[in-house]
């Protein structure tokens, strides 16, 4: 069951939903890209439907509501601690199929990896429902079909496809039906969200990556090509690493806050240990760690692939390093190592 409606009608739907929900969606930030007069598509809280970027693939992933790049967890002063205030209103997060598939990976790490559940993640996770943005075509660098994350049968409350100026929505959660049916001129119709069935980029991941791959020469070129900026991690919908900052306010050293900020296994400092040691000094070694974590180590522990094939790492790499190409290189090298 679904609806076809005009953009104006969709704006009404969003306006009515905003009375109950906070909505996070990809937004085109004019001029916010790396270079002059280049836009960036970044997740943000929206106030109206026209802010939502439904066409372009976002540069940064939908995880930013769940795992903000920087979040104050609590404040402390002498013997007291106060958790940061939290907006408990329900939240809708827009995302493409790859983004929705990434949720399972985020949940895995924050909620299902050991005994403790991360309370700061959970308090956000409990608030959200997803809205699916359909993919009318595959974008540059996408390889979701290879990663089996190109389709979602469920996991969203309604879908949004912008086709020839009309919004096509499939309603999965009936409680959202009234927001659509209330719009005058909305046409009730069976709607199937658009999914990509083929990408230009295809990867093949070895069922088991042989241990010997860590000694392969294939990593060496990244020691000089990679600039260890960490963009691949920051845009990745499945990267979950963070670090802590305990900050003491400069006006009064007895008061401060603890912040959680995003971390990257490519950036300096990630493997620093007491005494000045650093496990992975070379960028090639960091690349090896990242790639094998994504396509082998995570799977060994949890039984399924971590990478969802969104290709955002390839989209953003300033040095034109292709993660999908590395996967295929690993695949080829794995066969050699075996034989």
């Amino acid at each position, binding site marked *: 069951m679904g609806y076809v409606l005009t953009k104006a009608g969709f704006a009404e739907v969003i306006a009515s939903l905003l009375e109950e929900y906070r909505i996070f969606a990809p937004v085109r930030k004019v*001029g916010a890209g790396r270079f002059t007069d280049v836009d960036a598509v970044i997740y943000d809280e929206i106030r109206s439907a026209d802010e939502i970027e439904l066409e372009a693939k976002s540069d*940064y992933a939908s995880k930013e509501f769940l795992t903000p*790049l920087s979040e104050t967890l609590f404040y402390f002063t002498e013997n007291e601690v106060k958790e940061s205030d939290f907006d408990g209103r329900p939240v809708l997060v827009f995302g493409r199929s790859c983004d929705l598939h990434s949720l399972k990976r985020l949940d895995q790490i924050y909620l299902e990896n050991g005994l403790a559940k991360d309370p700061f993640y959970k308090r956000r996770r409990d608030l959200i429902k997803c809205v699916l943005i359909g993919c009318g075509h595959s974008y540059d660098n996408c390889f979701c079909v290879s990663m089996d994350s190109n389709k979602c049968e469920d996991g969203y409350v309604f879908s949004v496809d912008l086709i020839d100026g009309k919004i096509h929505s499939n309603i999965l959660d009936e409680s959202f039906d009234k927001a659509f049916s209330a719009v005058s001129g909305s046409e009730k119709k069976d709607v199937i969200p658009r999914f990509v069935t083929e990408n230009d980029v295809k990867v093949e991941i070895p069922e088991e990556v042989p241990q010997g791959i860590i000694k392969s020469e294939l990593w060496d070129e990244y020691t000089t090509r990679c600039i260890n900026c*960490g963009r691949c991690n920051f845009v990745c919908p499945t990267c979950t690493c963070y670090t802590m900052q305990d900050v003491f306010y*400069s006006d009064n050293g007895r008061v401060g806050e603890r912040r959680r*900020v995003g971390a990257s296994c490519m950036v300096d400092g990630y493997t620093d240990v007491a005494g000045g040691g650093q496990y992975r000094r070379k960028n090639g070694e960091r690349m090896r760690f990242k790639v094998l974590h994504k396509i082998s180590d995570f799977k060994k522990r949890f039984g399924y692939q971590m990478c969802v094939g969104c290709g955002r790492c390839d989209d953003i790499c300033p040095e034109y390093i292709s993660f999908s190409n590395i996967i295929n290189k690993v695949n080829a090298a794995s066969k050699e190592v075996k034989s």
Partner: protein
Amino acid sequence: MANLDINVGKLKKNAFRYSKVRGETASRIRIPGGVIDAKSMGRVVEIAEKYGTGVINITNRQGIEIPGISLRDVDKVNAEVQEIIDSLRINQPEKGKGYPSSGTRNVIACPGARLCPFGCYDTTAFAQKMENNIYPNDRHVKIAFTGCSNDCAKVRMADFGIIGMTEPQYDKDRCVACGACVNYCKRRSVGALELVNGKVVRDTAKCIGCGVCVAYCPTRAWTRSREHYFRLVLLGRTGKKNPRLAEDFIKWADEESILKMVKNTYAYIEEYIDPDAVEHKEHIGYIVDRTGFEEFKKWLFEGVELGPKAEVNQRIYWGGKNYDKYGG
């Protein structure tokens, strides 16, 4: 055939060079902003092959000179360059007669934001706007645009140097303290950034608005300001007497003010140029040396309203070599 009888002053003003080879000249093509369409470039090639020696000189100021043209062919070449003049939209009072003046030199621009990752604005577009603002004019004025503080266009050798700036905008909620901006600002720029309590603090007095922090930020915590800003530097020059680099005049200037100030300069030149100057040509800098900077400033600021961020250097002291005073 009649003997050559050439008004050399008019010839030069018409953008033809006085050549050391008797009977020959070179046609000087203006390319404001340094961008010429491929078709016009083809036209240059045709003229060089038909009237010249098949050779093309690329000039220091991003122009073209077609050498080896007979002085007898000047009118024909003027007819042939018309398409180039039209396509580059050069102001011209009368079509078919070639360039109306050559005093105000070709306006230079580095590739800028159309191509360069560090360019803070569209240098070519601003250069073309400037060209339309001041050309044709016989006064000897040099203007150059560069996209960022790297100054690849070497604007500090011009009378007016325009250096692109951006005012970095910081969203602390997107900052993870990776340190890339601090590191690159220190290594590639002036070291205006510092990590304090896990967030970045920008020394606004030190910051030159180069945008390196924005280019290297992996999370879009640093972005560019919506407004394009400029550092205007004044009165650099080469030459025999007192070659010197341009000095800083206004930091965080705006486009409109710069256009107006350059325009105002021509009125100042008319008022104060040495009437006995050789070939009626005198660098503005030497005129300012005579009248004092305060007087020049008064003329510059006529009708100009600078933006709220503009920082004006009220006193400027130029350096350089003084061969005319102290010898070399």
